[in-house]
């Protein structure tokens, strides 16, 4: 069965997108990219620092993974728009993971600033992938604004709390006209599988891999989990039943 994953007309080779933040070294990032077979990875935009050894860009180039700059750290639409513009010039891509967060403690998106930034960036020709909360209405508004995907959170960034509200994710999926990418909150493989089973098209995660005790093993786990969840979604799971149903035949019992 072919089951291509396409964003904005571009087919991506995997339904797993890796964030690169939190990893202990560039070497580990490279190894997790290999182990995960990730389609794309995110980077943040920061001041050039002469003291830094090596560049994440070299690692990404070597692994032939698509780059997705984010606007992490931005609190207003204005900052986020300008960060996206800088990223476009620096990295020569008009794809952007749009983040506009409201505070340090929750890192939750500010719905008003986020929608405003999305509208502005779409008008400037960007392909916008917004990191949003799990509100189906905001997800719809972002799609109406022309975003090429919506990326609702499972739970706040870095918490590892998994998918706090599966019902909302199902509502978003049920009416989505662009890919839905579960972004943030994934803690372990079963969370990623569940995201796919709820109907998400892909999963984006960073801390779950980069901060695991063994990031490379967890990267492989996530790759398998995303595939497992996607296959299970498409395979049509059995319904939940209150009472049991035998899996061995009830006829043909011997008289013992």
């Amino acid at each position, binding site marked *: 069965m072919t089951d291509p994953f396409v964003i904005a007309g571009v087919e991506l080779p995997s339904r797993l997108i890796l964030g*690169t933040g*939190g990893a202990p070294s560039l070497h580990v990032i490279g190894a997790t990219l290999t182990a995960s077979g990730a389609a794309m990875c995110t*980077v943040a935009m920061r*001041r050039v620092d002469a003291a830094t050894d090596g*560049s994440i*860009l070299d690692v990404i180039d070597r692994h032939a993974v698509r780059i997705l700059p984010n606007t992490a750290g931005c609190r207003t639409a204005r900052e986020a728009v300008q960060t996206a513009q*800088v990223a476009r*010039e620096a990295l020569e891509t008009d794809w952007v993971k749009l983040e506009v967060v409201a505070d340090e403690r929750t890192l939750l998106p500010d719905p008003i600033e986020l929608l405003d930034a999305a509208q502005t960036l779409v008008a400037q020709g960007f392909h916008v992938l917004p990191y949003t909360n799990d509100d189906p209405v905001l997800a719809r508004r972002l799609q109406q604004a022309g975003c090429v995907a919506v990326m609702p959170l499972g739970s706040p960034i870095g918490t590892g709390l998994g998918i706090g509200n599966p019902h909302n994710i199902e509502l978003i999926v049920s009416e989505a006209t662009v890919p839905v990418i579960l972004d943030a909150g994934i803690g372990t493989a079963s969370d990623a599988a569940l995201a796919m089973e709820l109907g998400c098209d892909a999963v984006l995660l960073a801390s779950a891999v980069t901060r695991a005790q063994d990031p490379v093993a967890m990267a492989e786990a996530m790759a398998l989990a995303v595939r497992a969840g996607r296959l299970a979604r498409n395979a049509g799971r059995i319904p939940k039943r209150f009472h049991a149903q035998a899996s061995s035949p009830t006829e043909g019992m011997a008289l013992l």
Partner: protein
Amino acid sequence: MRIELNGRPHELLEGTTVAGMITSVTGSAHGSAAVVDGEVVPRSAWSDVALREGQSVELITAVQGG
């Protein structure tokens, strides 16, 4: 000529363009971009825009994140 680069004083030769500044600081024309006095300079204009004394420049690149 002195500009402010990423919040610190930085000496440049008169007439240095954005392209020149980026290459001299980062060693490459790829992977970074500049904001000059609050305006993002399009890559296509880098060779045409000369920096001026006292300008404030943010030189930005990709780092691990997200």
